[in-house]
């Protein structure tokens, strides 16, 4: 058995005549944080939407733990242990922290046909999780998401992934619009997630943030993968920027 958690082979995706992904091969190993970089329109979002079940590829194969799978929708992705934290749509702002944490997987109590949510358990678990992800302020789990700061929202979304022992956490621009301290918090959560055994795909426009946290960088350009084994410890931000813009003469292993 290989050490790949997920492996995607020859993925193609068209939107009308536009080819958003062109024979892309992509893999994430167990316990690895992969930075996925590329300019606007490079295909990053399309790729993660395919992994998270929002879109289906036109051709290509996806393997999880070496087993070929068909990720038809978000429910399938969750079943395969994939959790995606989208930039803006990760949480329902009207609902409380606890209700968001357990959305779609609410614990119930009492007779089964009543489907009664165990709100005491949800609140107690949420309080514990908030402490775990480092929200130091005493925020009650019944607080609506709308009352939280951007960093706190990301923390809640990540706490949810940690709680459900997700194998692969995809973070789409998790540091967008965050302050310095909040960004540090998010980067810390990502490292915590890896320490607890999860793999991550980290997408961010800010390459400085990517360099601080990832093990390996993959670059997409114009729907094609142009680099896949950039080690941030052995490269500079400028080099990676040149690869993203197509100015680099450096050949990276694909």
């Amino acid at each position: 058995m290989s050490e790949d958690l997920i492996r995607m082979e020859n993925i193609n995706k068209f939107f009308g005549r536009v080819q958003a992904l062109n024979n892309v091969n992509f893999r994430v190993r167990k316990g690895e944080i992969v930075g996925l970089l590329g300019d606007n329109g490079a295909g990053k979002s399309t790729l993660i939407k395919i992994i998270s079940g929002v879109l289906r590829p036109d051709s290509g194969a996806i393997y999880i733990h070496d087993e070929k799978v068909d990720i038809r929708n978000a429910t399938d992705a969750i079943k395969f242990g994939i959790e995606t934290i989208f930039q803006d749509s990760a949480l329902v702002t009207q609902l409380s922290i606890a209700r968001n944490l357990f959305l779609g997987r609410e614990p119930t109590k009492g007779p089964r046909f009543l489907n009664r949510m165990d709100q005491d358990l949800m609140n107690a678990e949420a309080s514990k999780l908030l402490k775990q992800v480092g929200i130091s302020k005493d925020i009650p789990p019944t607080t609506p998401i709308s009352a939280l700061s951007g960093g706190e929202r990301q923390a809640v979304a990540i706490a949810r992934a940690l709680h459900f022992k997700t194998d692969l956490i995809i973070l789409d621009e998790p540091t967008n619009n965050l302050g310095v301290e909040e960004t540090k918090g998010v980067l810390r959560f990502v490292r915590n997630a890896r320490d607890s055994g999860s793999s991550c795909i980290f997408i961010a426009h800010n390459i400085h943030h990517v360099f601080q946290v990832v093990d390996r960088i993959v670059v997409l350009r114009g729907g094609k993968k142009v680099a896949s084994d950039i080690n941030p410890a052995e490269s500079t931000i400028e080099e990676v920027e040149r690869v993203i813009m197509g100015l680099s003469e450096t050949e990276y292993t694909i």
Partner: protein
Amino acid sequence: MQPTAFIQRFVYRPEFGPFVLLVAQLIIFASFSSAFLSQGNISNILAFTPELGMIALGMTMLMTSGEFDLSVGSVFGFTPVLMWTFFNTGFSSLEVGFLLAMAVAVLIGFTSGWMVTQLKIPSFLVTLGMLLVVRGSALYITAGFPQRTWTTDSPFMDIIAGSFHIGSFRVYASLIWFIVFALILGYVLTQSKYGNWILASGGNTSSAIARGVRVARTKIMLFILTAVMAGYAGVTSSIRVAAANPNSGTTYELEVIAMVVIGGTALTGGRGTIIGTILGVLILRTMRNGIVLIGVPGLAYNIFIGAIILIMMALHSWLERRHRAGV
């Protein structure tokens, strides 16, 4: 919990505004008209209120999920027409006719829900079309004439729309059914996991989908629920007034939506309250009754309703801003 904290929580609940309005309304009408709080008048208000109220309960659930249904008034008129046509033509017994008519209501709700969720057509357009199709069907079947409803003496009619007296106070079975439905739906919305899914579907559809919530299925079920509640209310009404008029229920959709939003449910979804809807229903029904009793011309009714909607929307918008700020 401190008493002040309790009061503060109560004040910022979406039901607080409609509650205060209802109490104020009751005080004003009672002080201007001694007949307002008479047993006869209260019984009169409570005769029709549950019928519109049932539609409002279904609509509350649907609107919480971010959709609404303009065809409820037509379904209210069409379902009893169908039931009584089945019965009057000898096609079926009344009970079977009822089940068949309700099955058609299920089909109407399913069709609307399917078109909204699968064809991605806004619910305004789908249900506007459905409103015309259903109303047109009711008129076509009956050639525009009401159906006879007094040719049977079935216990089924007593169960749905019978009445009994407590002293001189007449209580309709529909009131009991309304309370039962309100308790069930209130439970579903606030206590069950389905309530969480409904709120999430209306609050942030893409997030709900990403969490594995079956948003399309949830919304289709709510369209069906709304149509069934409207159909059931129509059947109740047809038995109570001893006529199944193909035109009955015209413009109910707007009155019901007004009741729901006055009660504190958000038109855009993500927030819904059954208690608020009950208050909204009572506000509009007592308003209609009260202004006539105190001598305001009935034609001025819409001015009051419009003003109430505007005031309540302003209040809910203020509360929503406070809610967002975490107060």
